[in-house]
């Protein structure tokens, strides 16, 4: 009984300390951000790595999610005889919720794992120690540009996801199911407000910070072995996904 209690206490203490380490690391990155932005070329490279290289998967997923939304939305709205509201339903669903969340989950899987494994391998092959020995701070030179690249890329990807998603919903709803094109767009324009778009933008920015921070934290602190790098990559996906869904609930509750 005593042992069980001790193990539980140890587990709780470990969890609190890892949350603390995450918070300190992210805090340091945010504090260093102005300095990081000065080396803009490095950041642009990472926006390309995290953003442009994730574009195809984001666009494809956006299209399919939008098309499913079109089908399900049409099926549901038809029961109430209001299928012309499909545009509104799809747009609100995508812009406020699915765009930021699904993009963040895909981002964690594509760009997050790439970041974590790259940093983990740099640790395992002494590249980070070599920088330390060259009096170059690896957090500033390597981690910060990658973090900022992810933070900048994420809202852009979410916007592209939502845009392609709406196109997908339109493709199914209007072209296949015969919803009136004028109604589809005009109802959407009438119902979707600036605040709805901003909700999505804020969410995607927060998710961008969270996913990038998790990826660089896990990669930078990876155990420098093949197994350690693998574990860091897995943890990146698991922690990012849980954090994104948790933050999504909290942000939705606050902003509704």
């Amino acid at each position, binding site marked *: 009984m005593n042992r069980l209690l001790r193990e539980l206490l140890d587990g709780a203490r470990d969890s609190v300390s890892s949350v603390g380490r995450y918070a300190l690391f992210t805090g340091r990155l945010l504090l260093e951000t102005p300095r990081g932005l000065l080396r803009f070329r490095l950041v642009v490279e990472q926006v390309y790595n995290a953003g442009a290289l994730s574009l195809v998967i984001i666009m494809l997923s956006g299209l399919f999610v939008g098309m499913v939304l079109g089908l399900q939305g049409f099926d549901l709205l038809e029961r109430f005889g209001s299928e012309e509201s499909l545009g509104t339903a799809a747009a609100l669903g995508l812009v406020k919720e699915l765009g930021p969340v699904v993009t963040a989950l895909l981002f964690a899987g594509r760009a997050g794992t790439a970041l974590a494994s790259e940093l983990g391998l740099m640790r395992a092959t*002494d*590249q980070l*120690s*070599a920088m*330390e*020995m*060259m009096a*170059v701070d690896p957090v500033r030179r390597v981690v910060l540009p990658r973090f900022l690249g992810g933070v900048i890329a994420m809202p852009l990807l979410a916007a592209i996801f939502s845009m392609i998603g709406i196109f997908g919903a339109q493709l199914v709803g209007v072209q296949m199911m015969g919803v009136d094109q004028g109604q589809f767009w005009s109802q959407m324009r009438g119902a979707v407000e600036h605040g709805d778009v901003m909700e999505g933008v804020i969410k995607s920015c927060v998710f961008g910070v969270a996913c990038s921070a998790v990826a660089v934290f896990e990669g930078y602190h990876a155990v420098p072995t093949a197994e350690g790098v693998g574990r860091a990559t897995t943890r990146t996906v698991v922690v990012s996904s849980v954090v994104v869904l948790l933050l999504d609930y909290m942000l939705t509750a606050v902003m509704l």
Partner: protein
Amino acid sequence: MSATERRHGAADDPCVIRVRGLDYSVGGRSIFSGLDLDVARGSVTAIMGPSGTGKTTLLRLITGQATQDAGEVRVDGVEVSQLDRKGIYALRRRMGMLFQNGALLTDLDVYENVAFPLREHTRLPESLVRNIVLTKLQAVGLRGAAELMPHELSGGMARRVALARAIVMDPEILIYDEPFVGLDPISLGVVLRLIRELNDALGITSIVVSHDVREITAVADEAYLLSGGRVVASGPPAGLLESDSAEVRQFMKGLPDGPVPFHYPAPDYAEQLLGKERP
């Protein structure tokens, strides 16, 4: 005494690195106890010892990547453990280090790898950076490989590029961590020659951590043999070969059994074979 006076005073000191009474332990396991070691200015000093004796740990202490529990680690008269982060970075800018596998930055080509410290620490015009990088690459014989990526290099070439990078800021101290591991005889000969030539031509102090006795004997002026957390022998490498100590002789001649036993500590062989429980 001001820092400047200390620096001037230190420059006359024949020892660049002075370690006294060093104690260091990790997770309750003692790595060093009462270690004393001097590295003479302008020399090639070898630090040898069986695997796990803390040779690399000693380098970490000298370069400020770890802090000792007790004792002194002084570089040019300055106690490394007293330095703040800025001070440690200033100290490291006077040092170059060659890692075991080269530790080249995999996303940059050879040229950019060598130029990396210059770009991070100086604002030299591109033409000057180019001249310096090509000079250093020429010194290691790889000017022609400037455009290759690290994954296109052999192990020996990667180490030579890392060496060019280590000397690009004209360091006063050059540290080699296991520079001979995994090299073919030709690359090994090249690295050996470079260690000696760079040391003499640039007038720097070199520290080579290795357990390759034959190679070290060929290149070092002075050698320290570490075992069990202390220095068991020191002096010119040729002298160590003739040592009377069984411990030193076992290491220098590569004998499989001796003071360092062939067998890892285990219960009695016969008893264990006849016993039922799994080891």
